């Protein structure tokens, strides 16, 4: 899922302790969760390093994006070599999806804002706080929860 990993737009929401206790009296949401997009940074990186040798490009990508979002752009169970290869493949494959990627990126922030507003209408007690995730479950879920389109 390296393409997704590389080109992730990340929503960072305030953490809250895991709890099974009902929160039925929670206050309605008054503001959307924080939203951070890394898509433009990726596109800029791609253009800026277009003539760079692949190994150097991969190394620079990992350095730069690990600074941008520490802890996320990492092998996560793969070997270093496997992850490097996946980064290289993602960079190589980017031109083929660039147009749709850019369009999706440009539209997403607004879609997310609208989506949260819609969701609150159905679930007024929704709070934009994230859960604590069980590690085994989260590993499985984040890796395979979503439809695979060959990008894994």
């Amino acid at each position: 899922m390296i393409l997704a990993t590389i080109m992730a737009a990340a929503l960072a929401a305030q953490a809250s302790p895991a709890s099974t206790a009902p929160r039925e009296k929670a206050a309605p949401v008054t503001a959307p969760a924080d939203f951070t997009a890394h898509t433009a940074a990726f596109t800029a990186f791609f253009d800026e390093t277009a003539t760079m040798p692949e190994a150097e490009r991969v190394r620079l990508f990992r350095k730069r994006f690990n600074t941008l979002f520490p802890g996320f752009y990492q092998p996560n169970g793969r070997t270093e070599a496997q992850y490097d290869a996946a980064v290289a493949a993602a960079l190589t494959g980017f031109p083929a999806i660039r147009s749709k990627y850019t369009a999706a990126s440009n539209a997403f922030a607004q879609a997310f804002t609208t989506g949260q507003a819609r969701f609150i209408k159905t679930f007024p007690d929704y709070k934009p706080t994230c859960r604590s995730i069980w590690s085994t479950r989260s590993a499985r879920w984040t890796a395979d929860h979503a439809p695979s389109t060959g990008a894994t």
Partner: protein
Amino acid sequence: MDGGSRTIDGRNVMIFGADVIAKIHDETTIAPFLDHELFHLYHTTWFPDCDALWCSLWQEGMAVYVASRMNPGASERQLLLDIPQPLPAAVNPRLGEAMCLARAKFASTEQADYAPFFFGRPSAGPFPARFGYYLGYLLAGKVGTSMTLMEMAHMPPAKVRPLLEKALAEYGACPAPGKG
């Protein structure tokens, strides 16, 4: 991954993969997709993650069901029930068999049992990859005939499990273990 969540450096985040969104979503699917993902976030307040298959049937089924209810008339495509192939068409002719498989693996926590139901990669099993989303959606729909979305979302695991077992049983008897 088009959407998911992780805990990174102690911080909980939702992640949206722009590349996969660009590939499999469009202006007609993005709203149901966000409803689905936001529901996962919301749902864990009452239904924490657990490893048994039935937990995933409920969590994923509910997310698809909520997306369908929030987007009346949503198509299979909009609910992502068409990846990797139209799931209803593939599963419906053997729906009873599929539900029996879910009953047989109901309490399993083995990834090998979970994978054919929910992973996107090709499955060697009798049903298409991701067919658990469709089963979960149908089961949530059965439970949803007698309660509101909010009531469904607020149910803790101890309440969900017997309702899910009852909904599964409504699809008919299953072969005894070892005779299937």
